[in-house]
């Protein structure tokens, strides 16, 4: 519960500081990229705050490299 609240507050502060200027300049492209990244990061962060085991990017890299090694 508190994890999500904390993350939402952090996200809200970031939105508070960044969005108004972009909104005034009507840079919708910037804003949509900003929104997508902020949502992804917040979701990951809240999952992490509940100690959900996220997929490990390094394990993925290891797996890819090992499969490439096996091919040759």
């Amino acid at each position: 519960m508190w994890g999500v609240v904390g993350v939402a507050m952090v996200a809200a502060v970031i939105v508070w500081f960044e969005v108004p200027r972009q909104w005034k300049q009507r840079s919708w492209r910037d804003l949509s990229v900003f929104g997508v990244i902020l949502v992804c990061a917040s979701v990951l962060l809240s999952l992490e705050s509940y100690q959900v085991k996220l997929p490990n990017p390094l394990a993925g890299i290891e797996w890819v490299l090992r499969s490439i090694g096996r091919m040759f």
Partner: protein
Amino acid sequence: MGSAVDRPDVLEEAEIKLNNSDDKKPLVSIRAFTILTMFYTVGTSILITPGGLNLHAKQDAWIACLFGIALDLALVWVFSVLGERYPDLTIIQYSRVLLGRWLGGAAGLLFSAFCYLLAALLVADLGYFLTTQVMSDTPIEALAVIFIAAVAYTARQGMRVYSLTAEMLFPWVTLLLVILLFPVFNKFDVQTLRPVFEFGYIPVAKGGASFSMLQEVAVLLVLYPFVSKGKGRRNGYLAGTAIGGAVLFSVTAGSEFVLGVELTANHVYPSYALAKNIRMGHMIERVEGLLMFIWVCSVFIKTVVTFHASVIGLNQTLGIRDSKLLIWPLAIGLFPVAMASYTNIVFAVNFVDKYWAAYAFPFIVLFPLLLLCLSFIRHGRRSVGYDRPPGRPS
């Protein structure tokens, strides 16, 4: 009232313009760039490379280190040729010029992702070092949050600020390095270095090659167009790498002399163990705090540069106008990535030792080299002038 509200906007716009590559005014002086490169080379390597080198090359670790530095310098020389061919563009931009909009964009995105993951790993590196060696009761998450906040704040202040920060830290780090390394040279003993090439050339070459993959100096090609132009820029890139390499060499040789090969290879952070062993009379003791300071400084600078490079890369591939907009959202994403990547220290050490070189090679060696070859094919031997960049990407 109206003018008071308007003015910050104007200032901000000027700042945004300043942070875009379109502006001709350089953000980083050549001296600052040299120091940035030096910090970037020293980075994490000062703590972890002596272990890896001693593990593979045994008592020839110092030769492997020299070989690795030579390799680094050769790569930097090639990178600077590439950088000077497109003096106003970052590697992300000329990958779009050379590979085309889609392929180049995809390559730029991958390169940014590489930088982003590297930044997350640096955060985790710092966290693991501090929690295992110094602050064993502190949860790693607390350190990571504070560190990420500092990194994001500094990156948001812009390139000029953090290059000046590096310039400011440089004399202190140099002083501390002298205090750290001066007593070590008394321990110099040729006997520890013998027999030379006991296991042949292969382990030495292997150790040197994997050592040079840990410096990732190619990432600095993103910063390269923001440095003041001229011949000094190239020399600064080379000199920074050389100075950083000299520091790494001294630390590697020092750990070999003081700790011996076995102990160096078995420590996760051999240079920290080295610093713990230093004692000058009864006057200077517990200098490991100094090493920690040096290391935190260099990792901080390296993380800021790497993270900023990933942000610049993403901005330029996606065509984001405000260069600072994505810094905070990306920064909060660093935390889960860092925590998910390094699940424990054994996994991390094993990954760096066995897989890092193979993973990093395409990004930090193959990609720039491919771009250089393509550049020679497409634009001929002439380097492209400052005023006429070939087909600036939209």
